């Protein structure tokens, strides 16, 4: 604080605060909340800026022309000589292009610690080579997540493997005008009370940008903490008020026509039921540490992300699930009771449950091996599919139509500037 009061450091402090407190990019020359750097809440989290010196150029911007400049960074720019109209006008206008947004917790940001980091027999000079990059992303992998994933795991194959699928990729396949139009506002530890602040870090202008399909998922932190008492759990009344506030804010901030899908909480008993007798990576050399030991150790130190579910005591696990169910019912009730002026808010059952119910293999493959808490890469891809299927089946009118010009766009603009 003292350093920040010195004028020479003010700008630096402000940049750092943007990153730590506001979850916006650390490196963002023009202040439009989009960056040309990948990490530090940059392009891995929000579509890559294609001009970081002009605040009027960023992904998701509503434009009717882009004859000379690609103002929404979707890679579609220029004039068709035959019609003398811009390609954006010909191939994107009126195609119901929409951005994809996640508001959520570490599951939405895709928290992952490479298991090789804790497996002695796999350690070598390459093991920690991505350590700093991974820390710059807060141990999250939004670029591989179920809502905003856009990469393959090829680049990261020693740290993470598995398929990648996401709502964003589905939206982009439907309409290539949606290229780069994604934002992941997932924050480790986020719960309904903190979401009231986090929602304000969305970079979406109500009048200047395209509408969005947003997903709100807060899977467990409202009932999870490292502490052994229920006073740290959100009550149904608090939850109702917090989420009502979030939806009202979105109603006032998002472009008209935006859709918000909100889920409830998971039943985290699946974690202990699946993993308790399995060996944790840190115990893999001698087979001497089970997940049950690991959970109890974190609880003993009071550093567990979820005392209630990551617990060898069944009473605690049941009690935590009871409150989670109450909060899920509260979310359903809130959505049923309330109508919003500019946006549509819809309830979506937690897709994770369907993924676990239908998975034919070892359920342990669906859970992150190091933390024994988060959904794995496989789960992320499956959740994206289940979510999309649910949206198509339940709300067919919500899914925008396929852009008939997709092929022409691909032929003319290739990878549209990539990521």
């Amino acid at each position, binding site marked *: 604080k003292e350093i920040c009061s010195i004028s020479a450091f003010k700008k630096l402090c402000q940049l750092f605060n943007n990153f730590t407190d506001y979850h916006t990019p650390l490196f963002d020359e023009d202040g439009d909340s989009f960056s040309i750097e990948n990490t530090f809440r940059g392009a891995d989290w929000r579509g890559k800026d294609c001009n970081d010196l002009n605040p009027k150029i960023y992904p998701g911007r509503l434009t009717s022309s882009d004859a000379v400049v690609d103002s929404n960074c979707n890679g579609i720019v220029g004039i068709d000589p035959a019609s003398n109209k811009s390609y954006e006008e010909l191939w994107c206008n009126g195609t119901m292009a929409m951005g994809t947004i996640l508001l959520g917790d570490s599951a939405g940001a895709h928290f992952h610690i490479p298991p090789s980091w*804790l497996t*002695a027999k796999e350690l070598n*000079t390459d093991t*920690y*080579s991505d*350590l700093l990059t991974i820390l710059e992303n807060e141990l999250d992998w939004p670029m591989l997540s179920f809502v905003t994933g856009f990469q393959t795991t090829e680049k990261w194959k020693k740290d993470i493997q598995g398929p990648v699928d996401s709502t964003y990729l589905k939206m982009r396949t439907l309409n290539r005008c949606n290229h780069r139009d994604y934002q992941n506002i997932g924050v480790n530890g986020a719960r309904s009370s903190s979401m009231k602040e986090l929602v304000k870090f969305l970079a979406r202008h109500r009048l200047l940008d395209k509408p969005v399909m947003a997903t709100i998922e807060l899977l467990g932190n409202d009932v999870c903490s490292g502490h052994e008492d229920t006073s740290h759990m959100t009550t149904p009344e608090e939850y109702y008020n917090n989420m009502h506030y979030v939806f009202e804010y979105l109603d006032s901030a998002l472009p008209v026509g935006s859709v918000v899908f909100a889920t409830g909480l998971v039943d985290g008993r699946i974690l202990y039921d699946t993993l308790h007798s399995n060996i944790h990576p*840190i115990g893999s050399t001698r087979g001497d540490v089970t997940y049950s030991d690991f959970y109890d150790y974190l609880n*003993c*130190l009071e550093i567990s992300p979820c005392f209630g579910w990551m617990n060898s005591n069944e009473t605690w696990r049941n009690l935590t699930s009871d409150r989670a169910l109450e909060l899920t019912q509260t979310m359903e009730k809130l959505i049923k009771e309330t109508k919003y002026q500019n946006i549509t808010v819809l309830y979506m059952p937690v897709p994770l449950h369907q993924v676990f119910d239908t998975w034919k293999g070892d359920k342990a493959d669906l859970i992150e091996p190091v933390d024994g808490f988060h959904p794995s890469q496989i789960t992320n891809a499956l959740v994206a599919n289940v979510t999309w299927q649910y949206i198509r089946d339940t709300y067919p009118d919500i899914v925008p139509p396929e852009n008939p010009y997709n092929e022409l766009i691909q032929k003319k603009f290739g990878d549209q500037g990539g990521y």
Partner: protein
Amino acid sequence: IDGGTKCAGCVVIVALVEQLSFIYNETVADSLARFCSYLPPEIDIACQFVIKTYGPSIIDLLEDNETPDTVCYGIEFCKKYDKSKKMCHLFPLPPSHFKDETERVTRLVTKAKGKSSSPFP
């Protein structure tokens, strides 16, 4: 409690060093150097600092067949603030050695301090 994340971080790193020594059948000192060599150059200086400061104690305690948990209590990354509470441990404790955990931890700290050639911060 008992050092929280600092304690857990210590236990994980000491465990990896101990397991490397087991896997490669080498001394703890060599495993400690091996572990540091695996880290990116940007944090190598931090690793060298840890070796200088805590290396002798970690080596002595692990070579005395202490577990990663007790080593970290020994070098005071884990601290037992409430003596009435049980010691937090990730790895199994050797039961015959653990009649009085508090006494054992105190003894370890004293031993680690005595054997270390570097001052504890």
